[in-house]
């Protein structure tokens, strides 16, 4: 009773821990979290996405064949969405100042406050009683003569010339955020009523908005698109959830098929699958407790971990078939082998945890945890169940698959086919050349995403920003950001003169200058009392009340701000809309953004010349170049160190130069054939292919090592070793290929590249190790017979 109670309590505790861990799982869809955080491009783009990507704003695109239909549809949909205040805080389909132009006064008042005090003082002179009438006469002349519609519109509403202090670019809209030039494509910005705290919130909210749009009476020929940060999060998180289940399920099915083909027993098959499910759930819950949010790459862990953990299950089951002793004996018998292979595999995957690529590091930690849990589950639970099964329904070895795998015909034909395969792959490598290299950010994008497709469409219709560089300037204080902005503008101007940049625009005109604000506020505050005089002078000059609105709102704003501490930030709806993608000043982080148009081919020079402390000039293309420049070298160093470690262990374990050379030759041949296979399939080498090489060195080389160890155990008899390990290598390889292969179709292209490269590499490694390494050993024996077979390798 006491034991039962203890067992129940322990079980409840374990279940609670597992449930707690699983409930903590969350996804991080940001592809930048897969990359080394110390890279400047990653830092800058992360800041751009974190502070300017607007996590609660969905971008809805409306497209039709003619501008009238598009405009009517956009207005109607905006009104429909705005009628759901429980879901939507704000719907913006037109610039806020179109609805209320007087709101622009606040932004203008703010920009004027940031002007050099001497400049503002000169302008203020034009408002004094002696000069004001002449100022208005000039405005009247402009209104009579000017051919420029912008000047007519501006001077009519600003006869005192407040806007004349600002550069013309402040009023020239370079791109329209709401409509394409032909009016056939419109954009609606929809903000969530509540902050979208996590991916589940984003999925629910985006679905609710899409449902409203689906039920809206859509005019014929109108197409809608949904993009922006919530759409990306919903799209990618949704596919991550689905993919983890799908790829894991596919792997389980393939493993089940392999097991069935070998042993033709349902009960142990179901038991093994249950063990794998337990391993998966426990590993995932441990990940929930110990790891950060899962990245898209971590989704692949389920398949990889299952593919590797099942090896221990195969081994335990195979041993149980040949075991007649107690359970403790069976566990003892399996422990040494499983402990050795599990610890080396886990060590390799945990070594990935040291990688500078966070996505890969997390995958390594997850799989490392998974194989340890898998080993514990197989030894602790499955050994007992397998032994019981063997007692109730014994399987008499050798099973048919074992007989086939060890038959001389199979091994002979295998060798010839392996030789042909190597020939084809090496020919492809030599004839077609090595695979193309692609380190661009697009290799980490989802294969299919409505949000990405809509964003691409939006970029194409509202102004192609591809090739532009985003400027991000940070600092601890407004003064520091302002100083960095000025220095950046100076460097950019030099870059323009040098021919590295075509043009640039920074947030400097929208950034507060506290010192100037303080001085200017003291100067403009008295003008609040001048309002009646300025008003009357304007009416006397022939203007109407409408012409005084802007001046009045600027002067009143100055009056309001006169008692407030600097720095002063504009805050009304129109200002917030203008600043939202250019300036951030919430909390401790202060950021200013900008855009730079580089001269083609001068991007690297520009980034090097402008970037500095707290100043980032970034783009997705530059990110690809930085990855290509830095990561392969770093990865090569990790691979070299890992490979050296493997060779050192082998040197100690095998103590045979011939075996070491054969191992090196096998590994080199595998890598060359892998390159040939990628070329033949039209693939490219990217960041994740390099990671796959790392994994191959950790897991794939096991096959050749096992063979070489078996040759040693069999006193140099390579064919005996081949017969002993034939089925084991085929089983392990099939399950690992199933695991990695199932993620070859993952939606994330990086993950798919990793899975495809690993699956190919493992299959090639197994084929070469199993079928070609033993004949190669024998050939070496014949050519250099000096060694005594009994000591070899």
């Amino acid at each position: 009773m006491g034991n039962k109670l203890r067992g129940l309590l322990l079980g409840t505790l374990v279940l609670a821990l597992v449930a707690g861990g699983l409930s903590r799982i969350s996804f991080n869809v940001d592809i930048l979290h897969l990359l080394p955080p110390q890279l400047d491009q990653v830092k800058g783009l992360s800041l751009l996405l974190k502070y300017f990507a607007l996590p609660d704003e969905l971008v809805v695109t409306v497209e039709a064949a003619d501008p009238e239909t598009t405009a009517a549809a956009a207005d109607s949909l905006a009104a429909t969405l705005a009628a759901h205040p429980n879901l939507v805080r704000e719907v913006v389909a037109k610039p806020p100042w179109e609805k209320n132009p007087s709101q622009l006064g606040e932004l203008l008042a703010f920009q004027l406050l940031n002007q050099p005090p001497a400049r503002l003082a000169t302008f203020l002179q034009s408002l004094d009683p002696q000069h004001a009438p002449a100022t208005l006469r000039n405005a009247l002349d402009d209104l009579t003569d000017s051919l420029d519609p912008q000047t007519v519109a501006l001077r009519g509403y600003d006869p005192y010339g407040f806007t004349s202090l600002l550069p013309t670019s402040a009023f020239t809209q370079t791109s329209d955020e709401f409509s394409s030039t032909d009016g056939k494509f419109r954009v609606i910005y929809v903000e969530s009523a509540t902050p979208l705290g996590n991916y589940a919130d984003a999925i629910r909210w985006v679905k609710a908005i899409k449902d409203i749009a689906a039920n809206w009476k859509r005019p014929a020929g109108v197409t809608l698109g949904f993009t922006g940060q919530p759409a990306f999060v919903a799209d990618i998180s949704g596919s991550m959830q689905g993919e983890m289940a799908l790829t894991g399920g596919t792997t389980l099915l393939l493993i089940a098929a392999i097991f069935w083909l070998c042993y033709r027993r349902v009960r142990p098959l179901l038991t093994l699958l249950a063990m794998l499910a337990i391993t998966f759930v426990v590993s995932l819950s441990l990940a929930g407790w110990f790891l950060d949010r899962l990245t898209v790459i971590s989704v692949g862990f389920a398949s990889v971990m299952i593919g590797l953990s099942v090896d221990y299950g195969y081994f335990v089951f195979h041993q149980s078939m040949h075991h007649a002793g107690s359970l403790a004996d069976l566990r003892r018998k399996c422990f040494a082998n499983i402990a050795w292979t599990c610890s080396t595999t886990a060590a390799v995957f945990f070594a990935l945890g040291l990688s500078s690529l966070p996505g890969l590091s997390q995958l390594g930690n997850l799989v490392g945890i998974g194989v340890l849990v898998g080993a514990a589950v197989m030894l602790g639970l499955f050994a007992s169940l397998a032994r019981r099964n063997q007692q109730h329904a014994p399987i008499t070895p050798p099973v048919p698959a074992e007989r086939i795998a060890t038959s001389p015909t199979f091994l002979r034909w295998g060798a010839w086919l392996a030789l042909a395969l190597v020939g084809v792959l090496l020919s492809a490598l030599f004839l077609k050349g090595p695979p193309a290299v692609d380190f661009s950010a697009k290799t980490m994008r989802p294969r299919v995403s409505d949000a990405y497709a809509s964003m691409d469409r939006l970029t194409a219709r509202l102004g192609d920003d591809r090739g532009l560089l985003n400027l991000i300037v940070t600092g601890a204080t407004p003064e520091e950001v302002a100083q960095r902005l000025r220095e950046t503008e100076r460097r950019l101007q030099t870059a323009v003169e040098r021919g590295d940049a075509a043009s640039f625009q920074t947030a400097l005109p929208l950034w507060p200058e506290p010192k100037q604000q303080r001085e200017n506020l003291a100067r403009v505050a008295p003008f609040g009392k001048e309002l009646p005089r300025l008003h009357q002078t304007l009416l006397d000059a022939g203007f109407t009340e409408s012409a005084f609105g802007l001046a009045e709102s600027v002067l009143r704003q100055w009056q309001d701000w006169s008692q407030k501490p600097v720095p002063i930030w504009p805050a009304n709806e129109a200002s917030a809309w203008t600043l939202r993608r250019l300036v951030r000043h919430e909390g401790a982080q202060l950021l200013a953004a900008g855009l730079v148009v580089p001269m083609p081919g001068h991007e690297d020079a520009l980034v090097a010349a402008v970037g500095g402390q707290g100043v980032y000039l970034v783009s997705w293309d530059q990110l690809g170049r930085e990855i290509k420049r830095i990561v392969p070298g770093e990865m090569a160093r990790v691979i070299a160190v890992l490979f050296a470690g493997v060779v050192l262990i082998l040197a100690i374990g095998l103590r045979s130069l011939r075996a070491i050379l054969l191992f090196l030759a096998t590994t080199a041949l595998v890598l060359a054939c892998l390159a040939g296979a990628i070329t033949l399939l039209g693939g490219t080498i990217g960041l994740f292919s390099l990671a796959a090489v790392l994994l191959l060195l950790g897991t794939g080389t096991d096959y050749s090592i096992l063979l070489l160890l078996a040759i040693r155990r069999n006193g140099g008899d390579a064919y005996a070793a081949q017969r002993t390990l034939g089925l084991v290598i085929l089983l392990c390889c099939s399950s690992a290929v199933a695991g990695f292969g199932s993620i070859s179709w993952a939606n994330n292209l990086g993950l798919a590249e990793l899975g495809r490269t690993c699956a190919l590499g493992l299959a090639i490694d197994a084929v070469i190790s199993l079928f070609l390494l033993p004949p190669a050993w024998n050939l070496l024996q014949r050519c250099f017979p000096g060694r005594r077979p009994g000591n070899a390798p």
Partner: protein
Amino acid sequence: MRLALLLLAFAGTALADDLAPVREWIARQNTITSIASDFTQTRTLRTLRDPVVAHGKFWFRAPGSFRWQLGDPPKLLVLGDDRAVLTIQPAKQTAERTATTRGFDFLQFPFAADFAAFQKRFEVLSVRTGDGRCHLEILPREAKSRRFLEKIALDFDLASGRLLGFKVLTREGSAVRTEFTNTRVNVPIDPAIFHFDLTGYRVRDGK
């Protein structure tokens, strides 16, 4: 003003009381070799108590030279060809050179290859005829213009096809009415009209 130039170019062509004559009028743009006219422009702005009035002259010569002159002596001049537009302020001795690729390109005649091309750029809102004249209301199809413009109303003499005047109404409530007088089509024009000596002027490149 740019629109005024465009519309003035139609002055010497035929206009009838439905879309068919408009189609014919546009088709006959190829016959224009030159135009000379006086104009009066009245700006009724929401921000001004009384309308402001300006007088000026316009010349056009194929294949693309024009001169728009405000005041006499000129207060403001715009000289253009198929490559650049020069805006000159004699009183300030300043000039601004602007590329013609956008904004002024409709001054190159024929303005529209055919009626279909015209319709591609403008939506015809209404056509009315009476008292020997045609009143045509149009709206540019370009989204940016539509955001600011309510409509453009043109008046043509049905008999001669001469443009009498046009009015641009903005959504904000202002209007600019331009009336043409003394219009002559296909008359000889001194080439010197399209040149201006900028010695001593400060010339800058506009955007």
